[in-house]
């Protein structure tokens, strides 16, 4: 029986769970697939309903987690095998090569500018900017070390030459680590649904139809445009934006469930747009306005009254494009006035469904736990054990067990930490 804990997923939930457990004096392994911790929250600009800058409040947590003496953060790593039982899990972790010695790299970024190939889409910035083969995942990345995209690297060696720390190792091998833990917390988060399959909305066909996460990067001060809302077609600020809810969610053809956060997310984005550009006209197309959290309804009321955001109850039928201006044109049944209308705007933001993260099935198989029909982790008892998975000793929290906003994810993460401690204490006793 060991009382170390493995946390899978380094988003805000995973970070919080790790910090809580480590705070109790337990040893924690935090495994993150991406080369930096931070998760989706790091990609957001501001958070609703308080308008807090997302990375500002998250970055200290990321640092606290990374530098905590009880937490071993393994980035760019994946869980490959789990055997044993609660109190005694043996876990195989594959540490994928980042072709950089994390210990030696100082994050100076000299190598980044030395790399001659710089036309790869930057994942963090939703491909709205390009990066090189060697790159720092994002400005506030933790750990702040570079990594090499070997798939595209031609091994010119420029980076090695410029690196005074001698940190670059283009022949680094994958490494398999085995750890021994008593409990596992899964917080592997979500992915954004790709709306290009919803042909009628023109994502991918029309430049000025973007997703909400792309929009977040566009308005973020440390994003690809430095926070200027430059729409993709002409890099100009649009004078109106339409946000479309339930793109791929509450839709039995894609994801039947409600993603829970998009109504508020869009409200926040509309408010931000209005704050940055006072003449901006904002429209939100919705089916049911789901403002059910603390202070949410008030936030929506403010958006309506103070920020003049226009809420239109309708799910648009189709989006076309004005060939001249490249303005998206929305065709919709205004269900309140019961009339079909046409609305031309400067930019359309699709508030896409949030879906279980890629690879959740494989992870579930490795962990030996069940998924529900929406491919979220199944919980043991939806009332009284909302954080226990179908297998003892494995807890699930955050979006990977169903739609949630940040405070709920943080709450669950803390709860999962408490449950892990409880499970370990009971096993020990």
């Amino acid at each position, binding site marked *: 029986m060991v009382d170390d804990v493995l946390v899978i997923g380094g988003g805000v939930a995973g970070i919080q769970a790790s910090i809580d457990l480590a705070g109790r004096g337990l040893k924690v392994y935090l495994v993150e697939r991406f080369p930096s911790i931070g998760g989706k929250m790091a990609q957001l600009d501001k958070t609703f309903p308080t308008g807090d*800058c997302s990375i*500002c*409040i998250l970055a200290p947590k990321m640092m606290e987690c990374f530098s905590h003496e009880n937490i071993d953060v393994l980035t760019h790593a994946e869980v490959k095998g789990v055997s044993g039982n609660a109190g005694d899990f043996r876990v195989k972790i594959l540490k994928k090569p980042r072709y950089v010695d994390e210990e030696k790299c100082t994050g100076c970024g000299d190598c980044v500018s030395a790399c001659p190939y710089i036309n790869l889409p930057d994942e963090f910035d939703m491909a709205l900017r390009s990066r090189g083969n060697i790159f720092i995942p994002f*400005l506030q990345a933790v750990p702040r070390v570079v990594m090499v995209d070997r798939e595209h690297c031609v091994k010119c060696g420029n980076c090695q030459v410029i690196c005074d720390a001698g940190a670059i190792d283009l022949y680094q091998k994958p490494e398999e680590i085995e750890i021994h833990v008593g409990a596992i917390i899964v917080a592997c988060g979500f992915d954004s649904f790709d709306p290009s399959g919803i042909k009628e909305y023109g994502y991918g066909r029309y430049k000025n139809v973007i997703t909400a996460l792309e929009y977040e990067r566009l308005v973020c001060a440390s994003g690809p445009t430095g926070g200027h809302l430059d729409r993709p077609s002409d890099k100009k600020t649009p004078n109106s934006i339409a946000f479309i809810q339930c793109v791929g969610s509450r839709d039995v053809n894609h994801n039947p469930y409600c993603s829970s956060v998009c109504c508020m997310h869009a409200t926040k984005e509309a408010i931000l747009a209005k704050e940055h550009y006072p003449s901006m006209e904002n429209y939100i197309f919705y089916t049911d306005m789901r403002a059910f959290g603390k202070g949410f309804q008030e936030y929506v009321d403010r958006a309506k009254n103070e920020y003049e955001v226009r809420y239109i109850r309708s799910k648009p039928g189709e989006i076309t494009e004005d060939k001249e201006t490249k303005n998206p044109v929305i065709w919709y049944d205004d269900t309140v006035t019961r009339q079909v209308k046409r609305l031309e705007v400067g930019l359309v933001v699709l508030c896409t469904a949030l879906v279980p993260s890629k690879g959740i099935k494989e992870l579930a198989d490795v962990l030996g736990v069940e998924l529900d029909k929406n491919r979220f982790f199944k919980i043991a008892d939806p009332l009284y054990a909302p954080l226990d998975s179908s297998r003892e000793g494995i807890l699930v929290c955050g979006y990977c067990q169903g739609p949630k906003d940040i405070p709920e994810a943080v709450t669950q993460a803390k709860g999962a930490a408490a449950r892990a401690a409880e499970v370990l204490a009971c096993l020990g006793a």
Partner: protein
Amino acid sequence: MKEFDPKIVAFCCNWCSYAGADLAGVSRMQYPPNVRIIKVMCSGRIDPLFVLMSFLEGADAVLVTGCHIGDCHYIDANHKTKNRFEFLKEMIAELGIGEERLRLEWISATEGEKFADMVKETVEKIKKMGPSPLSPKVMQ
């Protein structure tokens, strides 16, 4: 004759504006080397005395920076900063040394560019205005 090289004192809070200054560095945003940052935990710690003293010592400008209202790491301590700043502003105005020499900016941890711009603008403005008349050097 050597060009006038202003000296600017900037007070930054640990959580937002200092991090914003860090981000300016990480992003390699270039600005002139005239600013000296003094870190405090919170902009609420910035005693107006420090600002006055900076001017008396010879600062050509003083920048007071902190988290945006509503984002303060210490709930609402930056509200106090703002209140006190009103006093300083009036004082500087009455003294007649040029109101532009004192500036309050809220800078979040993501606003590296804002920090760099603030320094650039201030240096340019102060260069035009010339040395602070309160600076001891001028007296001699």
